[in-house]
């Protein structure tokens, strides 16, 4: 067996009030995929930030190819061949693909100016070496889909001759076809001897591509095992310290009258002629590719981007919704898809984030009742088992999954009649996911109408009473719970490929252009 490229021994890292890592071991060998697992807040992101030079550990040693090293900054780690793709992608949206790939180490001409031609051709080379030949390197990164942005990140890592590539939840926000592509790139990198650290909450992925797996719990090291000697149940019990049902069975709820109805809802270029109904007690899943107009239709209903045509009816009466505030007064809540930019105010504390949607209810004559606000924060922390040191913790300093729980909490606090959730369990660990599914099921039982946009097929199939499928801004199919299968939903999402002569890829490109 080959010696490790990178070793982390006895790593301890504390933040004010939290021990994020406590005597943790980790190592990575050339050409292997080493999965890193643990619940939300277990310390995974912190560990890889130690490995990539973002944080210096309080104690412990970092060894690269047998030599002890100290990383004072991410640049040091990069110089040692360690590249990282963080949970929140860090590209510059206003710069081109090539500029992003060579950010900080652009090729120079002899006069010291940036050598644009070389930069472009080298970018194309690197992308081609990853079997990516459909990307325009002069395009702004901000106009790419998340899947493509991720490929740019990988290319960037390779442009620095990375020998270790760390990926923190790379599949949380990309489509299934992007996941397949990512896996084939990972396979390619393995063959080249790159060691890959892979963090994910989707255990099936670990079994698909992982060679070894390390589990953390509460900042402590539990074990490192070869993946082929593991089972899903075993892994879960290592992560949570007990066995749990990681799938929550949907509860049956009495389906009542129609609460929300949309008729021929249209917003230019993103949604056309969308009509459907939502009943009390019903959970309606909405499937579709990224960019198929699912979030867009939700944002039209929520008044964020008002409709150009069509109507919205609440309890059978037509209403005009032009701002989110109005939608909320009609009892509609929308949990947006991107927690970092849309869902949370990262610089504010947990308390202010959970109360922001219900400030009026928590205040008298516009004076905020601090006591009630704190109570709400505590009950949210308890209800969703958020790992935080208290209501005063800045949300930006919570782990990714715990941030997502805060978004869920702030919208549940509004006690809506119609709850629209957009990728509600993105980045949430298996146990907490089952917990959120149970919560949604209970809320439906109490009469809430829920529209659930999700790209995770098991979530859609497991939770929905009815499933709507969107493609290119249109509602193209509807299935009852009994009819729905992975195959027929998948087909409806892709469309009839043979007939109109379009490949899935060109459809995706069209979608990307809209986004």
């Amino acid at each position, binding site marked *: 067996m080959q010696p490790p490229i990178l070793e982390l021994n006895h790593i301890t890292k504390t*933040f*004010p*009030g*939290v021990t994020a890592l406590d005597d943790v071991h980790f190592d990575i060998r050339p050409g292997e995929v080493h999965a890193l697992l643990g619940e939300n807040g277990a310390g995974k992101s912190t560990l890889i930030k130690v490995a990539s030079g973002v944080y210096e550990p309080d104690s412990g040693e970092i060894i690269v190819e047998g030599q002890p090293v100290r990383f004072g900054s991410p640049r040091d780690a990069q110089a040692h061949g360690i590249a990282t793709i963080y949970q929140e992608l860090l590209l510059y949206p206003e710069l081109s693909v090539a500029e992003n790939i060579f950010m900080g180490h652009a090729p120079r001409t002899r006069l010291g100016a940036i050598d644009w031609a070389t930069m472009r051709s080298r970018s194309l080379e690197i992308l081609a070496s990853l079997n990516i030949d459909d990307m325009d390197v002069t395009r702004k990164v901000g106009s790419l889909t998340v899947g493509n942005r991720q490929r740019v990140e990988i290319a960037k890592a390779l442009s620095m001759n990375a020998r270790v590539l760390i990926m923190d939840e790379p599949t949380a926000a990309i489509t299934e076809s992007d996941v397949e592509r990512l896996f084939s790139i990972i396979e390619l990198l393995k063959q080249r001897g790159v060691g890959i650290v892979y963090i994910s909450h989707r255990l099936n992925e670990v079994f698909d591509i992982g060679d070894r797996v390390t589990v953390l719990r509460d900042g402590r090291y539990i074990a490192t095992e070869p993946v082929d000697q593991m089972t899903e149940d075993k892994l879960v019990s290592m992560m949570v310290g007990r066995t749990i049902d990681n799938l929550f069975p949907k509860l049956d709820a009495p389906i009542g009258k129609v609460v929300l109805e949309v008729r021929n809802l249209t917003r230019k270029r993103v949604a056309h002629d969308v009509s459907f109904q939502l009943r009390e007690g019903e959970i309606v899943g909405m499937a579709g590719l990224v960019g198929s107009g699912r979030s867009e239709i939700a944002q039209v209903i929520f008044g*964020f981007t008002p409709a150009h045509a069509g109507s919205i009816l609440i309890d059978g009466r037509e209403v005009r919704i032009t*701002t*989110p*505030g109005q*939608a*909320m007064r009609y009892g509609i809540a*929308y949990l*947006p898809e991107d927690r970092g*930019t*849309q*869902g*949370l*105010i*990262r*610089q*504010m504390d947990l308390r*202010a984030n959970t109360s*922001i*949607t219900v*400030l*009026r209810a928590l*205040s008298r004559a*516009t*004076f*905020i009742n601090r006591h009630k606000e704190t109570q709400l924060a*505590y009950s949210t*922390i*308890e209800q969703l*088992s*958020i*790992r*935080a*040191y*208290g209501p005063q913790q800045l949300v930006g300093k919570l782990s990714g999954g715990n941030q997502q729980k805060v978004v869920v909490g*702030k919208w549940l606090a509004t006690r809506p009649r119609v709850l629209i959730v957009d990728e509600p369990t993105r980045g949430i660990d298996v146990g907490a996911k089952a917990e959120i599914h149970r919560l949604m099921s209970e809320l439906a039982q109490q009469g809430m109408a829920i529209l659930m946009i999700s790209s995770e097929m098991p979530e859609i199939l497991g939770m929905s009473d009815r499933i709507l499928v969107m493609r290119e801004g249109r509602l193209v199919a509807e299935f009852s719970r009994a009819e729905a299968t992975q195959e027929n939903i998948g087909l409806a999402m892709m469309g009839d490929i043979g007939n109109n002569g379009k490949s899935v890829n060109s459809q995706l490109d069209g979608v990307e252009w809209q986004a």
Partner: protein
Amino acid sequence: MTAHETSQTRIAPAWTQQLRALLRSQESVLLFITVIAVLILSTQTDKFLTVRNLLNQGRLMTEIGLIALPMTYIIVTGGIDLSVGSIAGLSAIMLGYGWYNLGLPLELAIVLALVIGAIAGFANGLFIILFRVPPLIMTLATLAFYRGLAEGIAQARSVRDYPEWFYALGQRETLGIPNQLYFLVIAAIITAIILSRTTFGRSLYAIGNNELAARFSGIPVRRNKLIIYTLSGFMSGFAGYVLVSRVSTTRSDMGSGWELDAIAAVVLGGTSIFGGSGSIVGTMIGLVLIQLLKNGLALTGVTGDATIVVIGSVLILSTLINSVIQRRVEGL
């Protein structure tokens, strides 16, 4: 469950934490600098630390102060208002013009001046929210536009000889304290309470930190922006009125350069120019510090140019201290 427990077991009691946070805040750092500055200046000249002088300084800083209060709101949301000085000038001119040229009763001319200020601010806000003009560009344009308007109306004439009662606000005292200072103190208390205690104040911080998320949370972002720019215009108009009452005359160049003084007070007071954090208390301390430095240095015989250098240095110093503290707090 665990989260609740950890908050009690791993963290020091809440009050010591709060005390530490208080000591490390920009406001306390600034207060400390102010006290030092007062001590040093008072050893240099005995004309400085007298009740008479200090009250007079209070009188002089009122106009900038009235503007710096809504400016704090605007900067907290990540915006800026450069047109405040021009609005003050325009309002001052309209006061004199309305009374002298249009023959309005003086009371009505005062109201006119305030309304014009509010309208000028409202126009700023309207363009900013409707056409998404960046506040810097919009108010830079109206900085020139409103000043031009004032000059066009005034035609280089000044209006003076107001009735005696008109000077009460700017030149008289009640219980030994300059009259305009009451207005500043009351306005400061009200704006401070609104910013720190109400849903409106909270929404300003939310907008400044992440406007998109604020909109997605149902906060009426555009309405609230309109309100603060209108308030800024109104307060600028009021400051213009206070100035006319203090100096007894109306001229079209009144208030020029005020925007920089107001912004300096706000930023010195710890409000982040990028939005998202800041306080009225900080702004008031910043205001006082700048005024005391100006006055103290002038009394010790330092020339005007050197005074500006000193104020600039204090600004840089306090920002430095603040960022060092910030980094310590973030544990990096």
